[in-house]
């Protein structure tokens, strides 16, 4: 049956489907190729509308220029810090919470599960959250960026379900060997859970890497993450291309914007092919039903 299916000749429908899929792949790639081309092209080529998918007048001036902005490096460093620290805090808290919550026999287990699920559908909203953060005096500190997002209900449910699927015999053996529950979590459960931890760790890392809004409402300028830096260039809050004449400004700004887009997205694009299997895992591991 299978071999028969495999050697069936390509039909017209097949050709159409392949063509469609190739178009889909192109649509996903072209924006990045265009950004790369713009960032590597000379201002003359951009202003004369010569750049499409390949760089024209190849040069690295845009990159050289953004590397001279102290704010760019600062923002990039901030983002790296938020991503690393935020992901670590989140994994630590989630692992503790999810491990305890994977034990259905604990008192209050059902109630806490209900609290987790309910808060997915009804959240506090922007203003009460903002007032809470500012009344905790977190505004203007990096904690405003890290703490409020340390626990995510969706990631928790993924992890709880993963922990529940680990056979209880393994734990019973560890208890007989004299391990405490903390010991079991650290030495038995976490090493067995690297795929799930990698998945939620990646979701969290991507969240922190891409975040700009919380930086905008809670942080001072020197604490801004790189995405907020980019947003400020795009909407004109931060001026770029000041060294050039007014006429060149918009085209220089265009290649600089592209260079910032490329540099700030590069880690995701580079790591993506290597890590993509972990990205999908969360969708198949987690189910909303508690």
């Amino acid at each position, binding site marked *: 049956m299978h071999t028969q299916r495999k050697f069936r000749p390509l039909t017209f*429908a*097949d050709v159409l*489907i392949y063509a469609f899929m190739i178009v*889909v*792949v192109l649509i*996903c*790639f072209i*924006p*990045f190729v*265009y950004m790369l081309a713009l960032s590597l092209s000379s201002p003359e080529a951009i202003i004369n*509308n010569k750049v*499409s998918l390949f760089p024209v007048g190849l040069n690295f001036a845009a990159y050289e220029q953004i590397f001279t902005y102290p704010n760019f490096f600062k923002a990039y460093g901030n983002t790296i810090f938020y991503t690393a620290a935020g992901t670590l805090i989140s994994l630590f*808290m989630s692992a*503790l*919470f999810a*491990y305890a919550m994977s034990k259905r*026999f*604990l008192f209050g287990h059902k109630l*806490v599960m209900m*609290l987790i699920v309910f*808060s997915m*559908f*009804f*959240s*506090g*909203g*922007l*203003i*009460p*959250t*903002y*007032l*809470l953060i500012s*009344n905790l005096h977190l505004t203007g500190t990096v904690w405003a960026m890290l*703490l409020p997002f*340390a*626990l995510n209900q969706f990631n928790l449910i993924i992890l709880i379900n993963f922990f529940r699927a680990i056979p209880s015999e393994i734990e019973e053996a560890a208890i007989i060997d004299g391990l*405490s*529950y903390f010991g079991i*979590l650290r030495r038995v459960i976490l090493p067995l859970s690297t795929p799930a931890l990698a998945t939620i760790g990646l979701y969290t890392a991507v969240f922190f*890497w*891409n975040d*700009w*809004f919380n930086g905008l409402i809670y942080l001072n300028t020197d604490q801004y993450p790189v*995405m907020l830096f*980019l947003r400020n260039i*795009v*909407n004109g809050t931060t001026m770029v291309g000041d060294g050039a004449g007014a006429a060149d400004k*918009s085209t220089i700004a*265009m290649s600089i*914007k592209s260079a910032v*887009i490329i540099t700030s*997205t590069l880690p995701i*694009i580079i790591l*993506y092919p290597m890590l*993509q299997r972990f990205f*999908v895992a969360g*969708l*198949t591991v987690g189910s*909303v039903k508690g």
Partner: protein
Amino acid sequence: MTDTTILSKTPSGTYVSPNPKWRHFRRYWQLYVMMLLPLCHFLLFKYAPLIGNVLAFRRYRPGMGPYGTEWVGFAYFERFLQDPSFWRAFNNTLILSFGNILINFPIPIIFALLLYEVRSKRFRKFVQTVSYMPRFISTVVVIAILGELLSPSSGLLNRVLGSLFGMDPIYFVNEPQFFRPLYIFTETWQFTGWTAIIYLAAITGVNRELFEAADIDGATRFQKVIYVTIPSIMSTIMVMLILNVGSLLSLGFEKVLLMYTPSNAMVSDIIDTLVYRTGLTNQNYSYATAIGLFSGIIGVILVSTTNWFSKKMSGESIY
């Protein structure tokens, strides 16, 4: 001494209390300790703001705490219900949401069905991997790229339109009539591949025998999709529909904020941006909280009604 009469010794050498509760805590206290810090964090950052919604019924005074000073009842609700800018934002939210669901609910299903028809497994895997990559790109980057692609002076799209149809450059991101299509299209670009994963997993789980039976009955490829695949993944489709309708009022707020320009405000001002503007920009905290709470409650009502409805109609529900 009395202990020995109450407690009996277990093989591992510890005493076991006959009181089951006490025994439970003795044995599992570490698990409760483990939960303590994250649970407090969870209650603080997820439930304190929820309680903070009482601000919608109370007057806020700066420096007097996040929960306001005195009760004012439904005064803020009455005020925004008479405010035309609220109704504008309300309408914009509904139109944008319905438009978005109308386009972006079926597209991932169709994409998944087509992708499943791709013969080569390796090519299928490749397309899938590429297609959900945009999900991980920052909204800031998506909107920045959009701005450059659509730039009237040197954007790629205007040049293509100009050379193919001789059209004058259009300032897409500034024209109100393009705001909704651009919002919906960028959603398609960013999330089609990601959402399709769920449908593709469902399609892969369909019982092979059903297809073989359809083959024997002489069904064409298209008939198999219509009469076998789609009915088989109906439960997944229903669950996704509930989730979509339930989040009707919660649009991609950050994206709308990034796409907002004064010239497209009449279509791009949605409830969330109104809350942001009145609350954080104008510091009208109570008023903004009231609007936010109103839309949150509508959201909960929407989820539970669609869920109830779907349970009645097809037996599918999310809780």
